[in-house]
């Protein structure tokens, strides 16, 4: 393809505009978090902190229960990831390899569940959790998050298990190994990349969930990060600096994760879409 110099320049300008639009809100958040209190209310707003002020970061962690939110989110998201991936690697293997009736029905059921709007199940789930004494607990959220991430996780892993060549299993079978043994010793290690990809996706979904976290865990001590951020504004003050600082802290690990595992995430996300 021939390209004139002009069109190359135009192309790079387009790329730059896209990048600026994507990055700008983050830039704004970061400088807001570093602005000293007296600069926060300037009109027009300043585009650079008049002096670097770390008070907002300190306040987010000391005067507000932000550390608690982080801890809660970590517990819930990590447990959900572990539980969902554990449960669905069995299911995914069975669906990919073993022969039994109703496999397609199960996959179809999972797919339709993935389309459920959360609001359609939140009221009875709230009542069930209340009955089981699981409101304001980690278990209630973990259970719910595991369930809502199972469909995605199950599809991903099933697809992934199918891509693993059958020869190795066949060889193991010839040696007389049971399907279960084959699964643990041969398939799982081969599937590790797929499991890892799935785990990242489940983790992000659980880390970001809002509706159930908002309705189930109403005590401050059990709030997760997304709810904590949404509820940050107090009764009488608007702590823009503090919220910005808190958001920067929340976003950083996600950015690092995305940059590190970018390829995996994209392949996990697109696996379903591209193959139909």
């Amino acid at each position: 393809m021939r390209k004139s110099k002009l069109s190359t320049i135009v192309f790079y300008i387009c790329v730059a505009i896209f990048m600026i639009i994507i990055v700008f809100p983050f830039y704004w958040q970061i400088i807001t978090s570093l602005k000293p209190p007296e600069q926060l209310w300037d009109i027009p707003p300043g585009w650079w902190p008049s002096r670097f002020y770390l008070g907002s970061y300190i306040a987010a962690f000391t005067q507000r229960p932000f550390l608690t939110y982080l801890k809660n989110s970590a517990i819930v998201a990590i447990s959900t990831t572990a539980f969902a991936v554990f449960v669905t690697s069995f299911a995914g293997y069975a669906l990919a390899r073993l022969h039994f009736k109703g496999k397609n029905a199960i996959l179809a059921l999972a797919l339709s569940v993935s389309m459920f709007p959360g609001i359609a199940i939140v009221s009875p789930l709230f009542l069930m959790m209340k009955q089981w004494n699981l409101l304001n607990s980690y278990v209630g959220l973990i259970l719910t998050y595991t369930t809502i991430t199972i469909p995605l996780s199950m599809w991903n892993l099933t697809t992934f298990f199918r891509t693993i060549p059958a020869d190795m299993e066949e060889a193991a079978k010839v040696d007389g190994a049971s399907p279960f043994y084959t699964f643990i010793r041969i398939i799982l290690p081969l599937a590790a990349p797929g499991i890892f990809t799935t785990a990242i996706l489940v983790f992000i979904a659980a880390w970001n969930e809002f509706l159930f976290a908002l309705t189930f865990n109403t005590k401050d001590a059990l709030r997760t990060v997304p709810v904590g951020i949404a509820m940050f504004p107090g009764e009488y003050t608007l702590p823009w600096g503090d919220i910005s600082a808190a958001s920067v802290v929340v976003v950083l690990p996600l950015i690092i994760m995305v940059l590190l595992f970018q390829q995996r995430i994209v392949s996990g996300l697109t696996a379903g879409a591209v193959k139909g």
Partner: protein
Amino acid sequence: MRRHRGIRSTGIPEDVLGYLMVAPALLCILMIAIYPVFRTFSLSMTDMKMQFPDMAKYIGLNNYVKLLQDSRFWSATYNTLFFTVVSVAMELVIGFAMALIMNMPFKGRGLVRAAVLVPWAIPTTVSATMWKFMYHDQFGVINDILLRMGFIDQYRSWLGSTSSALWCAIIADVWKTAPFMGLLLLAGLQTIPGELYEAATVDGASRIKQFFSVTLPLIMPTMLVALIFRTLDAFRVFDLIFVLTGGGPGNSTETLTMYAYTTLFRNLDFGLGSAIAVLIFIFVFLISLVYINLLSRQND
């Protein structure tokens, strides 16, 4: 694949093992997703209020009758549909542009691909909070930019006007999800064999013609799948509205999920709230049907 079924050396029949391995996942789905849907439906036929849970009684379809006559329900439906259609359409166009760009070889492509994932990965409440600051009429940077560029001659209240608030939500949503769409479409683009373009070039087809005769038809299935995900996601929008406007101004950004949430957890009216939830479920079901229909027609 040929496989013989039956007893293996373990002594456990393969199908029993299969069911055992699927059981935990299936049980969770049945208990935490399927069963609640039915219970939402039965709740929607009662007048259950959280203050008086024991006084709930069966009232048939009364809640639905009430909703169908309720102008607030219809305006929430309209807002939801408007939000869904406009933001998904914009995401598709912008996402496509991004996919085409990312599909070209250029310096820094890896960085761009990683960067576009970031908005998708952060919690919606965080991105909504960021946008809320930027939209602020006095301290917000958007007014500052637009004023400097000469698009406006005085500060506007973007979130405070019924004509612009929903658009604000749409823009924030497009910002967060167009990159996601772009990546899905990019993956689709990469499956198109290069020979097809070469053949088309030999035939003398222009770039634009190639786009319509080669790219578009081949990417259609991927696009439809991406559209299903995004449409259903956009249709149940909640976090964004909750943080950005809380449904205002003048209820002009209240979506169906927002209405259901307020009815359930603020007014504690579980009967009516569940009825709204059931209607959302039905809408989602219909949308899925349309897409699945399109998709299966594609595959034929």
